[in-house]
């Protein structure tokens, strides 16, 4: 079997409030051409002004990917002629991108490897084209919506270090977890916030490029297909052609794109409408100081707390779940127990309702209260499951549910011990008799203490504690 060499080029839309070079809102799902201004349309005289937050979001990504941020950076015009680009060029970065030479640690079941990042650069997104959707007399036509034109984009280019479809998928999963944790992108592939091109060759031979794959699953399938296809070609002694291919979602295969009649000629030159970036160590430090705990670190912390690796990954890779976990942890310091409940009872509800943890009527403090009751033994964990179901259904607190349903079997040993001690203190004669051998009195003490608890003490615990206390005397 020949060994695959895979490189990924990922485009990430930043979730800023406004576009890269103008004040139009960046908002997915707005009506066509409703987030458009003279800059987006390249009307004469319109000039771009760089968005500071987009730049700093880009720095954050570069830092999280261990890239070197360059002291000097500049935008270039990438010239090409296409209707999604009314200026006739895309503002992008060329030979002086703001960052280079990073890496991402990628873990699969077989390996834990360092995948190089060649560069991360900033650019603007292009307009969205819709093809052949005419409802009028024209049979074939293309429609253009400029809302996406000018949305801030990052291009993240990996080194050709990836060696399997599984590893490519793990790279994307880790990258998306980082982007989400940084809070700079939704990372949503279905909405186009994350797009992926892949390069693949076998035994360092000729490579094919597969463009614009829009789900993690499809990246994996496209690569698996492509590895098989190239292997078959080489087995037959036929060459792999260097070309752009497209992944067909319906059939799971890749097909050859139109071969280019001439080589691309983007005639890059420095964008005269923008001044360069001078990036000082101080500026980088202010961004670095705002970086949150990253997924890898977070997974390690949760693992050290006693969570299984898979549990740690599920929580650490989903920022909203991680936030919920940490807030619960701040009032109930038992990570493993929190994880058990979050990943079973709570996740079940999230899946059933197809929503995020921020959309259910359970707050971290509420979960902590419930876990406290279970932990202290006020309720058993089996009853806890009934209680949390009720909490999730009604938004009531654990205390309210336990009280209303009188679910509180008392399991707290110290509370029970109190009743036992009171019972013994009030019955010195019986105690004396017991010590002298009247074993039958054991039942008497248990009965009296149970009475004191109002019948709510857990019988097994009560028995045990009566025994302990009698032995102490």
């Amino acid at each position, binding site marked *: 079997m020949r060994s695959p060499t895979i490189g990924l080029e990922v485009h990430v839309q930043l979730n800023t409030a406004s576009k890269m070079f103008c004040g139009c809102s960046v908002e997915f799902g707005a*009506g*066509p051409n409703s987030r458009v201004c*003279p800059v987006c349309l390249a009307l004469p005289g319109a000039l771009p002004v*760089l968005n500071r937050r*987009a730049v700093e979001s880009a720095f954050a990504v570069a830092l999280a990917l261990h890239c070197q941020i360059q002291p000097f950076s500049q935008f270039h015009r990438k010239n090409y002629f296409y209707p999604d680009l009314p200026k006739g060029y895309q503002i992008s970065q060329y030979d002086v991108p703001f960052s280079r030479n990073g890496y991402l640690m990628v873990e699969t079941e077989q390996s834990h490897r360092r995948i190089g990042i060649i560069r991360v650069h900033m650019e603007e997104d292009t307009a969205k084209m819709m093809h052949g959707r005419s409802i*009028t007399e024209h049979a074939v036509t293309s429609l253009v919506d400029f809302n996406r034109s000018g949305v801030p984009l990052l291009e993240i280019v990996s080194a050709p270090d990836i060696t399997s479809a599984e590893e490519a998928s793990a790279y994307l999963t880790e990258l998306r977890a980082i982007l989400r944790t940084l809070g700079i992108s939704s990372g949503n592939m279905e909405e186009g916030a994350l797009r992926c091109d892949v390069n693949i060759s076998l035994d360092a031979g000729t490579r094919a490029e597969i463009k614009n794959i829009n789900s993690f699953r499809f990246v994996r399938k496209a690569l698996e297909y492509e590895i098989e296809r190239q292997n078959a070609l080489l087995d037959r002694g036929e060459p792999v052609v260097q070309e752009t291919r497209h992944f067909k979602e319906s059939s799971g295969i890749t097909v050859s794109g139109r071969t280019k009649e001439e080589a691309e000629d983007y005639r890059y030159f420095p964008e*005269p409408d923008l001044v*360069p970036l001078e990036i000082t160590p101080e500026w980088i430090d202010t961004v670095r100081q705002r970086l949150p705990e990253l997924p890898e670190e977070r997974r390690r912390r949760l693992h050290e707390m006693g969570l299984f690796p898979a549990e740690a990954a599920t929580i650490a890779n989903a920022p909203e779940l991680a936030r919920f976990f940490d807030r619960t942890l701040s009032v109930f310091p038992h990570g493993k127990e929190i994880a058990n409940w979050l990943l079973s009872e709570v996740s079940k509800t999230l899946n059933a309702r197809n929503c995020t943890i921020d959309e259910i009527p359970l707050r971290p403090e509420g979960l902590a209260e419930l876990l406290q009751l279970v932990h202290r033994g006020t309720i058993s964990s089996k009853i806890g499951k009934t209680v949390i179901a009720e909490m999730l259904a009604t938004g009531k607190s654990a205390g309210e549910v336990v009280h209303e349903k009188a679910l509180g079997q008392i399991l707290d040993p110290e509370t029970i011990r109190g009743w036992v001690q009171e019972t013994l203190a009030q019955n010195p004669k019986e105690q004396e008799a017991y010590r002298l051998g009247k074993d039958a009195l054991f039942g008497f003490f248990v009965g009296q203490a149970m009475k004191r608890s109002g019948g709510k003490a857990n019988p097994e615990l009560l028995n045990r504690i009566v025994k302990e206390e009698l032995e102490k005397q």
Partner: protein
Amino acid sequence: MKVTTEDALHIAQLARLRFSPEELEVLRRQMESLLSHFSQVSELDTTGIPPTSGVLPLVNVMREDIARPSLTVEDVLRNAPDREGDCFRIPAILEEE
């Protein structure tokens, strides 16, 4: 500086422009004379001068990330050669199938 007919044709194709052979020859000669004129710049001695792409003594010009109102859809489409709903309509650009 020499500009060949192929060069001129290539530039025209990049801009999606079509010319008659006569027009192309006129443009080729004009480009050649323009480039020759500007090639005088390279006669200057630039030893010790760092390469630069701008003349403004400015760096890091940025705006805060605040969304502002956009144009109305009607204004956006005012220059559209053709429209369908709220979209620009253009001759079909065929995706590779």
